[in-house]
């Protein structure tokens, strides 16, 4: 055999080695999920319905130097969301709405949905539900996440929320989320009325709120304060009225002690 023949043979053998290697490493030959003791079984993963409308994962591994991750194509926040939220809060306070925090939060979510209309439409079509339902469920998902910001919850409760309670609240959210998605998809499959779907949406929201209140000791007013945000920080509503149940201090502020070596200032003469 000539040198060229050996070269050809080497290339064929080399290509064969590549194919064998890749074949052995295909996804089908992945180690079973039981490698990790706490991992869900492969059957569980197969039974879980894939999220419709999700980005498509490349079928083969991207190659360094050849492939690049795609540009961001995800819902994003509206540029004027904070101003809209603030305006909604002020308007709700002016009309003495009992839940200004919720109104402000909903206004922000509405702006978000409008800004991400394309994604909202795709989600509604993928799940077989209406745009208004997608908006309400987005509000609910964000509200539920917001309700578990424990630092603020502790401030509102004026006391600690123990780790066990936090974990139970997280589990509650996760379980309701899983159950709701299955129930809603079943209803859509059965072709029930829009009213029946809304009944399920209202039911899961009420269920979460009641169980969250029971678990944490929060109430409707405190939850609304949480949704309103902290008025003492940036973007705080300018129209927040002063507290009515606290008397102004009568004795004035405590005088500032002069630093060492600093001359004591003369008291100002009354104007």
């Amino acid at each position, binding site marked *: 055999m000539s040198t060229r023949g050996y070269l050809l043979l080497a290339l064929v053998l*080399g290509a064969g080695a590549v194919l064998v290697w890749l074949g052995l490493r295909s996804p089908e030959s992945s180690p079973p999920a039981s490698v990790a003791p706490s*991992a869900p079984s492969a059957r569980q993963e197969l039974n879980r319905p894939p999220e419709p409308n999700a980005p498509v994962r490349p079928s083969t591994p991207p190659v360094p130097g050849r492939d690049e991750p795609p540009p961001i194509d995800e819902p*994003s926040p509206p540029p004027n969301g904070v101003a809209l939220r603030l305006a909604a809060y002020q308007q709700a306070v002016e009309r003495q709405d009992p839940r200004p925090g919720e109104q402000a939060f909903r206004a922000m979510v509405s702006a978000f949905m409008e800004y991400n209309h394309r994604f909202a439409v795709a989600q509604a079509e993928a799940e077989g539900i209406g745009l208004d339902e997608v908006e309400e469920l987005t509000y609910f*998902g964000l509200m539920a996440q917001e309700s578990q910001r424990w630092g603020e919850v502790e*401030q509102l409760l004026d006391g600690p929320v123990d780790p066990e309670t*936090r974990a139970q609240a997280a589990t509650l959210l996760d379980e309701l989320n899983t159950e709701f998605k299955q129930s809603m998809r079943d209803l859509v499959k059965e072709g029930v009325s829009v009213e029946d779907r809304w009944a399920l949406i209202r039911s899961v929201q009420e269920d979460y709120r009641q169980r969250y209140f029971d678990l944490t000791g929060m109430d409707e007013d405190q939850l609304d304060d949480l949704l309103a945000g902290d008025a003492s920080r*940036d973007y705080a509503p300018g129209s927040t009225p002063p507290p009515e149940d606290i008397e102004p201090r009568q004795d004035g502020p405590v005088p500032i002690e002069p630093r060492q070596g600093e001359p004591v200032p003369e008291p100002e003469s009354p104007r």
Partner: protein
Amino acid sequence: MKINKWSLTLAACLGSTVFASTVDAALYVEYYRDNLFLGLAYHRVGCLTDWNTIQSNQDYDGFTNKRYCFSGSNAASVPSGSWYDWNFATGSAQLDACGLQANNEYGTPNYASSSNTCNYNIFFDCNSDCWIREFSNCQGKRVGTISPCW
């Protein structure tokens, strides 16, 4: 001369195998999102993968104790989560460093389920969305999030 030919053959085989190994050995950070109530709200998490399987049990996310990344599991999805983005990774050290950076930024030491430093702002700028944004930015490709963050 004969030895040289066999050497050439062996070198080509080895070279091809090394090439195949190099291609296959690429590591990735893959991102998954856990949809909340069929709306447009998600919890997002990153895992280290070789595209076929998840390579470590470390969840790259903050503000939750829920587990997603299980070493050895199929990388196409994680429990409760759908795949949505990816980037090349150099290894767990890189992802750990970015995880540490995000943990420091948002006060979630060791990927804690809540922050010990930020809890103040109005809408959602101290949450898992912002955590993954910080992490992915550090890692090399910022993923999409819905929170404005700071």
